């Protein structure tokens, strides 16, 4: 009769009434601590991972699309680009396709003012140039939306460039390897572009501003035909074909479809995950680990809070615990009552945290990403990861509630009743 079931039943009976009749302020405070712990554990990691996801997402929307074709390692361009592009455009999963030329080169600014002045520092830098069809690129990645100064390229533009923000000193984060931001460059400024030994003076049409790690910030855009000429390319073969798929289409499946069609013979076919720069995945894992470490500290703090709350509660109720034991209530039933109280705090705290997370934070931050210098962060909180974290909170809280109650329950019954040490 005096079974575990009875202990649980009596423990539940006591816990329910203790929680129900506890000070509302105390209960609110503990639940608030649990909510903060939950958010600390889930959101901090989520934002850190979201920072990197933000970068990946930028690459997808601004550069690679869902699937990108680039030149094979032993080729300078995608052979038979026109036929490949036509094939892709004919596939039902495809939303938009953009074809680009790309080349390295240099860009120089303020060269007219410093001509013949040997004391003036050269205002020149290596650059990554991309030749685009302005209308297609706009349909693909909404490039015009990133123009902060000046205007977007028009269909008939000639000798005009759009500068990514890293090339403009007032938007950049200082010197980077092979990239020295240009000073005093504004829309309308003349710049000298050198590609494959071909030099041309061009006009800055606009400046594209995005986060530092976005592809847009790192590139200089000009009309495709112009870059093709500067590169000295005599045919129409392009360097990149980026494909945006219709919603619901799987990029991996589409990549495989292209490979089966023989596209792999003339181009490297990659999904956006495969095409993002090396190291981003490692950075993502690192950030996730940092997030977990920060979250763990929060978990320890919450456990200590619960420990203290339960310990003080049990200590001040030591006499009553003694009396319960005195009249025959088992120590286990009393411990169970404290475990249930801890569970209540953990479950309510996590429940409120879940509501805040999925009811507000995740949708809000998805719609309004947290713009940070390196990326526009969202909150990445997969349900499975969140469930694991809730389980961690519950386990830690239950242990934190059990230990102090056990410490008090183990004390001599009569000493507890009489308040003796």
């Amino acid at each position, binding site marked *: 009769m*005096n079974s575990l079931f*009875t202990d649980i039943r*009596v423990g539940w009976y*006591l816990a329910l009434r203790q929680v129900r009749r506890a000070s509302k302020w105390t209960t609110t405070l503990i639940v608030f601590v649990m909510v903060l712990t939950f958010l600390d554990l889930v959101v901090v990691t989520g934002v850190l991972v979201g920072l990197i996801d933000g970068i990946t997402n930028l690459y997808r929307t601004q550069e690679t699309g869902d699937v990108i074709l680039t030149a094979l390692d032993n080729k300078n361009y995608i052979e038979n680009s026109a036929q490949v592009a036509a094939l892709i455009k004919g596939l039902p999963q495809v939303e938009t396709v953009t074809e680009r030329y790309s080349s390295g080169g240099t860009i120089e600014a303020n060269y007219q003012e410093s001509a013949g002045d040997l004391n003036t520092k050269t205002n020149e830098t290596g650059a990554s140039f991309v030749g685009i069809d302005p209308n297609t690129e706009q349909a693909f990645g909404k490039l015009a939306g990133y123009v902060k100064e000046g205007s977007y390229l028009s269909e008939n533009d000639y000798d005009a460039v759009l500068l990514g923000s890293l090339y403009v000193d007032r938007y950049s984060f200082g010197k980077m390897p092979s990239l020295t931001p240009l000073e005093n460059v504004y829309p309308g400024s003349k710049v000298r572009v050198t590609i494959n030994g071909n030099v041309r003076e061009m006009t800055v049409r606009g400046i594209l501003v995005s986060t530092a790690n976005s592809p847009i910030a790192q590139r200089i855009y000009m009309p495709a035909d112009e870059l093709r000429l500067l590169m000295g390319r005599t045919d129409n073969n392009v360097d990149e074909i980026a494909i945006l798929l219709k919603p619901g289409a799987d990029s991996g499946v589409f990549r495989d479809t292209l490979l089966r069609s023989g596209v792999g013979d003339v181009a490297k076919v990659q999904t956006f995950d495969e095409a993002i720069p090396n190291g981003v995945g490692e950075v993502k894992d690192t950030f996730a680990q940092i997030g977990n470490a920060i979250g763990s500290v929060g978990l320890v703090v919450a456990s200590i809070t619960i420990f203290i709350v339960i310990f003080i509660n049990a200590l001040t109720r030591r006499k009553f615990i003694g*009396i319960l034991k*005195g009249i*025959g209530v*088992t120590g286990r039933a009393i411990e169970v009552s404290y475990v249930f109280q801890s569970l209540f705090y953990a479950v309510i705290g996590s429940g409120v945290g879940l509501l805040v997370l999925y009811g507000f934070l995740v949708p809000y931050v998805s719609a309004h990403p947290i713009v940070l210098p390196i990326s526009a962060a969202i909150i990445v909180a997969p349900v499975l990861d969140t469930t694991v974290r809730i389980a961690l909170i519950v386990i830690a809280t239950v242990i934190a509630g059990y230990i102090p109650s056990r410490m008090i329950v183990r004390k001599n019954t009569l000493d507890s*009743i009489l308040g003796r040490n």
Partner: protein
Amino acid sequence: MIEAKNIIKTFKNGPIETQVLKGIDLIVNDGEFIAIMGRSGAGKSTLMYQMSLLDHPTSGAIYIDGKDATALTSHERSRLRLVTFGYVFQDYALLPELTALENVVVPLLMQGMSEKDAAARALRALQRVGLHERPGNLPSQLSGGEQQRVSIARAIAHEPTVLFADEPTANLDRESSDAIMEIFKELHGRGQTIIMVTHEDEYGTLANRIIRLDDGRIVSS
């Protein structure tokens, strides 16, 4: 029947040893109402704690219906306290966050009773002590006398073999004390064995036997 045989209880405080009970022999028969009396420090409460299995004697034995209770495990002693004994403490010892009814229900639940049956029986116990109209009151909403009556209801709800009461009127006014003793008389009239510690002669005389202690020894019985 409870039999205490040569009970010695010594308290240690560092190097100092104080012998509070110095070889007590006592038999309490079923249906008796015993009052343990004596000066402060005579060992009254200590003797009751040994007999009610709330404490372990330093030496000697307690027999409950012929069975040596000092040899029982902690779990068995706890079970015995739950089923066989009832306790009324000087300061009522009610759980502050439980209502009068819930305070009485807890030990009944612990005995495996359903919540519904326990509540019905608890209500009957409250009725016996005249508190059935206020079962939903918290202890803080009851007077001292009413709290002590709840404590008695809790002690008798499961119909224990022996009811132990440690100075049950010590914190009460005259009127409340009289009411509590009336309940004890009524319980005894129904055959309830009661062992009560008191320092008040007037209430001690209500018992059918008075055990007087002095300096840890029974001086009259």
